């Protein structure tokens, strides 16, 4: 269950925003994509799932278990999304449908991929809510997103992404929009869930300190190109490129935990 990205190019209106990015995520690996905003890290992630915005095109090769994803029909991609590859987005305030209860949203991918009837899917949703350590899961699945805090909503988004036990989780700056204390909790939660399932992880961030808590390897991007990649420990102790050195300076001091949580 490995992901291999080769010479990925993403163009929006003729402009190359991702320019020949290559990296691999072996089974069970936790890889960080790191760079300033506009470095192309989010578009790289969206390209993996075929979720690029209108007008953006992807070329190159993205292989998931040897299967080429670029050029795959949307229908085939939809079968993979949520089932084999899950994604968590940055902004928990807008990532949930405001007029559906959180339980129905968690149950959605279960109903689609595992074709469970509504009642059984809702029972699973309660279990999934408990798994991401939401308080009072029986009750909270009946709530609407506006009745939850930002951290709780991000937990719901994580439960949605992991409900079908995907083999790869893509986390696109999942903690950036949260308070520092909540950030640490969400990171810890992600870390333990990824470890429990033996999932692979692609973690996107601009903060090396955050990455130090969760990833083993990192790919540093700038202007759509890979400037440095390797083991995270290596990057932290002996950053080769000025970009990495800059990222090291700007990291959030309170979130340092070199060597990860475990």
């Amino acid at each position, binding site marked *: 269950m490995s992901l291999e990205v080769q010479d990925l190019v993403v163009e929006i209106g003729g402009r190359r925003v991702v320019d020949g990015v290559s990296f691999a995520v072996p089974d069970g690996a936790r890889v960080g994509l790191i760079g300033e905003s506009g470095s192309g890290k989010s578009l790289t992630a969206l390209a993996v799932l075929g*979720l690029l915005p209108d007008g953006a095109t992807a070329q190159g090769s993205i292989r998931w278990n040897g299967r080429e994803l670029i050029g795959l029909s949307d229908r085939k991609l*939809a079968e993979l*999304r949520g089932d084999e590859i899950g994604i968590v987005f940055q902004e928990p305030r*807008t990532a949930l449908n405001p007029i559906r209860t959180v339980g129905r949203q968690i149950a959605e991918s279960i109903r*689609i991929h595992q074709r469970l009837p509504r009642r059984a899917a809702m029972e699973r949703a309660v279990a999934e809510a408990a798994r991401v350590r939401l*308080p009072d899961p029986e009750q909270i699945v009946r709530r609407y997103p506006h*009745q939850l805090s930002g951290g709780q909503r991000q937990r719901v*988004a994580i439960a*949605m992404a992991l409900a079908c036990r995907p083999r790869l989780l893509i986390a696109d700056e999942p903690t950036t929009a949260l308070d520092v204390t909540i950030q640490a909790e969400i990171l810890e939660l992600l870390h333990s869930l990824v470890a429990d399932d033996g999932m692979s992880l692609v973690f996107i961030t601009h903060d090396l300190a955050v990455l130090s808590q969760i990833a083993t390897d990192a790919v540093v991007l700038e202007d759509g190109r890979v400037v440095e990649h390797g083991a995270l420990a290596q990057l932290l102790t002996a950053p080769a490129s000025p970009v990495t050195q800059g990222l090291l300076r700007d990291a959030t001091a309170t979130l340092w935990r070199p060597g990860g949580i475990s």
Partner: protein
Amino acid sequence: MRGRTRWPSRLWALSTGRFGVIVVAIVGLTALVARFWTPFDPQRVDIANRWASPSWGHLLGTDGSGRDILSLLMAGARTTVWVALGAGIVATLIGLALAALGALTARGVRESVAVLVDILIAFPVLLIAMMISAVWGGSLWVVILSVGIGFGVNVARVTRPELRRVLHSDFVVAARASGLTPWQNLWRHLLPNVAPVFIVQLSWGMAVAVLAEAGLSYLGFGAPVTEPSWGMLLRDLQAYISVHPGSVVWPGLTITLTVLGLNLLGDGLREATDPTLSRRDRDAAPPLPEVVA
């Protein structure tokens, strides 16, 4: 269930919503009853009883030919319900189809549809109806089709940008990331989120259909003379407004209340179906602790 009430009870809890429900229910029931029974035959002419004042025999009095006004109003309710429902259905089909074409298709197609909608919207509904009935003669179908098309375009113009907005919201991308196909996404996430805007437009469209029917009948373009209608009754009675000012009030009041009821019902529905607008809900749901230990 704590922290959540169903939308029908929330609608009923709103005074405006309750008013709308009651008015629309009364009009609907009256139309149903009038199908089988009215106090008098609405077309029965009784010269001896012309311009009778309201009494136990004729609750709302009679008109210049001695026809019972209450019976005429009841029979007219059938026409009104028919027109409002028909125009509502036509407007829904046309409005949603145009909005979907204008929001979800390839760029070239959706922008042409937007231009088309803007052109169509320039024609006033009543003008279209008068043109059609001038050519093919007045009938209820003319009213239903012209108001339905006219308001369908209106619905499309308001719903289209809303649909675009929702289409680009994070939760729709998130839903795609959960493996929903575009079609599932449309039914589960897009349409429910544009429903509030849509419902308000539609109820307003149905109210306009009632007014348009009355207006067209008033002008002689709407229902044929054999079909009792509120607009026609209003026209018949207002000719004598200086002599018998009391009777013209009834159809006027009926039309006004029905239009008001439809508008308030739409407004109430929007408020009742939006979970973020429910004050009650927020009070009922105490904040939960951030996480379990």
